[in-house]
């Protein structure tokens, strides 16, 4: 098998030409300075804290007291418990599904290789950053003011909105890591932009998207008890309403002393 050879060596730069001098790039220098500054600030901050080992020993008694007060945790009856667990699962599943659905267009905007315009890319990223920044508990508290106490809707909305931050970010990353080839093939065959995305990108990213959604579902399930305490109907709700359970269990759930 004969292949064409490279053009004659006389056209090429000489091998023994001196290497260009190595420069310290400004971005690397800036990164180093920031790192040093952060380290210095951490040391200063630690030195100003009233942190002594005798204080730590003194707080052990407090910790013991808290755990003693948790002792008789009163759980709701089996039927109530099953209902609350089912409700929690429902809220978390719906919230995560809503978030995953909202994340698809957001990720499409935010991914470098699919965004229709640079400005829209920033919009997509901004949606991700803002929804990530507002904690779901805060959203739940805000939404619970607009619905009846114990209604599951605020929980679904809170999880649905807050999870968009993480899910859309990871969805967009998956899009950016996908192979451009199949998209190009569809474009070369006269396909539209949406056909490029659903035919060339989506099948490639689907496994990663499912993994991301399941991971977020797991996180949301763990966080759901505290959402219940925020006034959203879920397994955390009995902790928040003193009439349905003992104040001691409430204390345990909220993590604060009565």
């Amino acid at each position: 098998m004969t292949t064409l050879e490279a053009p004659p060596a006389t056209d090429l730069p000489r091998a023994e030409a001196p290497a260009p001098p190595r420069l310290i790039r400004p971005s690397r220098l800036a990164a180093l300075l920031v790192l040093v500054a952060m380290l210095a600030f951490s040391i200063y901050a630690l030195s100003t804290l009233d942190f002594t080992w005798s204080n730590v020993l003194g707080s052990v008694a407090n910790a013991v007291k808290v755990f003693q007060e948790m002792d008789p945790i009163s759980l709701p009856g089996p039927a109530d418990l099953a209902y609350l667990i089912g409700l929690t699962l429902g809220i978390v599943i719906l919230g995560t599904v809503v978030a995953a659905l909202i994340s698809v267009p957001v990720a499409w905007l935010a991914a470098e290789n699919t965004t229709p315009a640079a400005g829209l890319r920033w919009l997509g990223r901004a949606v991700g950053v803002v929804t990530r920044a507002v904690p779901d508990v805060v959203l739940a508290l805000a939404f619970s003011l607009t619905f009846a106490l114990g209604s599951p809707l605020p929980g679904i909305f809170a999880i649905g909105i807050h999870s968009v931050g993480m899910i859309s970010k990871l969805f967009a990353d998956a899009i950016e890591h996908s192979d451009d080839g199949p998209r190009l093939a569809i474009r070369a065959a006269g396909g539209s932009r949406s056909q490029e995305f659903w035919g060339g990108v989506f099948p490639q990213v689907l496994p990663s998207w499912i993994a991301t959604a399941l991971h977020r579902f797991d996180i949301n399930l763990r966080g759901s008890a505290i959402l219940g305490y925020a006034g959203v109907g879920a397994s955390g709700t009995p902790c928040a309403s003193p009439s349905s359970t003992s104040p001691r269990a409430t204390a345990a759930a909220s993590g604060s002393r009565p």
Partner: protein
Amino acid sequence: MNGTATAPIVTISGLTKRFGSNRALHDVDLTVARGEVVVLLGLSGSGKSTLLRHIDGLESPSEGSLDVLGERVETLSQKSLRSLRSRVAMIFQQFELVPSLTVLENVLTGALSRLSGPRLGVWTYPRALRRQALGHLDRVGLLEKAYERSELLSGGQQQRVAIARALMQEPQILLADEPVASLDPESSEQVMRLIREIAADDGLTVICSLHQVDLALGWGDRIVGLRHGEVVLDTPTDGLTKSQVMEVYGRVTPTAELRAIETELATESLLLTRGAEA
């Protein structure tokens, strides 16, 4: 190139393409007649891919003009460009199939331009298209692989799937960008023969880029040589010898020619040794 029998299907004149300060194509003139099988020969970076992408309307020229299937490519709207692309099929060095989809669904994506909106899954395509896709798979000899995931196929098989996908477009022109550069010699030969057969049977015009002189000589009607984005050779294949082609590439100094011959000999003896070992 006048008269109905050899009416040009592609006419390129004065095509120059720059990417920033890098000049990929320089003042390229090329006319391809309907039904012609043309080989674009050149080293990597010589502008073969860029030229093919222009013919499919995937790039717009910095200077010059392109007429493809009677359309003035550089003046077309996005919508007309899509319609042009649907009539010009393209296959690629890396096949560019979706690995996780079945062979059949990959072939069906070739018909997307005839459908409105996206499709997910084989069953979302009309029955007539599914039947057509199976027919094309039969033609490339892969009907029994229709429901396998395309990533499980060998390179040669994947390229044949890509050819079936191209046929779904019912194209008038087939562009092939280094279609066998990632394949072993046996699969290469099979794929090249398949393209030739299909071109002859369907009266397709084919423009195929290659970097292997041997493959090009026995295959196309005409060879167009590119070097540093310029056309340096445009000649019918009949009676053309390898040394004539090599001359175009290694013409500057006698040592370069010598080197080309040396490398050729070295490669061939290496292949012979491998053959003897096997």
